[in-house]
């Protein structure tokens, strides 16, 4: 699971959950899969992402020194930061771990790189 995907996942489908975001991420095993840096793509992706979710991901992945507390206004001109975001969001691959609903504590396991967001019928 890439950390860009993590940024979109919520537990809102659980009955009674109001926001379900951000999910509490735990990483047991991660890999780095290098990919071509496309600054335009990162720049276009950023407005769709939640910055606090990016910060959380960076913290868990041990890269919090790379990501500033606030999204700088001139990020498009900051190639160094775009590269760091590219690495964090698209290259870190969470192989084993879990996501936890902030409201109910329901755990969604990540196995072999696949987050399992399926819910039982009695949970929805």
């Amino acid at each position: 699971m890439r950390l860009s995907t993590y940024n979109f996942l919520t537990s809102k489908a659980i009955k009674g959950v109001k926001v379900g975001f951000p999910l509490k991420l735990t990483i047991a095993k991660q890999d780095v899969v290098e990919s071509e840096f496309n600054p335009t793509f990162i720049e276009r992706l950023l407005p769709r992402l939640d910055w606090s979710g990016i910060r959380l991901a960076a913290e868990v992945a041990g890269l919090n020194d790379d990501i500033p507390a606030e999204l700088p206004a001139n990020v498009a001109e900051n190639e160094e930061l775009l590269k760091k975001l590219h690495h964090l969001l698209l290259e870190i691959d969470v192989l084993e771990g879990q996501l936890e609903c902030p409201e109910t504590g329901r755990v969604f396991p990540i196995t072999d790189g696949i987050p399992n967001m399926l819910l039982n019928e009695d949970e929805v």
Partner: protein
Amino acid sequence: MACIKLKKLEEYLHGVDTFEKPKIKLEQYITPPHIASCVLYNIQTLYGDIEGKYVGDLGCGSGMLSIGSFLLGAGMTTGFEIDDDALNIFQTNVTDMELPGIDCVLCDVLTLSNNEKWENAFDTIVTNPPFGTKNNSGIDMLFVQTGVNLASRAVYSFHKSSTRDYIHKKVKDWNVKGNVVAELKYNIDTSYSFHKSKSVDINVDFWRFDVSEKNL
């Protein structure tokens, strides 16, 4: 990444492993590599909807359309699938082919619209939905509706040609412009034992839905 040649793309997609035991209830059949490569190539060359784009694949199965999109230069692709067996093959394909930037989520595609985070997350959605012939009539349009919700540019989907008029009418309600990009013959061969003849050809339309002015 420069756009790869059609022939090369098809060669790669022939290497994608598919369902070991297709599940009837989920109407699993693969998007044949020849069809997948042709339609994806056209999505890129005619409409520019793949290269550098964030592409989502609804009901991705073992990843034919996700992998094809990535090979055509998508910035990132995320596949969604309810069947973990199919996703395990998906992951094996991605690992074996050493492809970066392809992700997948185990979930029910029909619940994605409940999470507003996914709204307009993608530039382009591709889907080869269940056709809705196994007591699940209309499920193909529920996939499209989910795609319309998730995409900001375009949704591409396969449907039985017999439903063409209905689809034209349906997407108008969402202020979405739909057009049939290609008419295909789908060969569903001996995937399932209940298919009486050895090989069944069905007429299938490949659609493009322009969602830039959508109103769901």
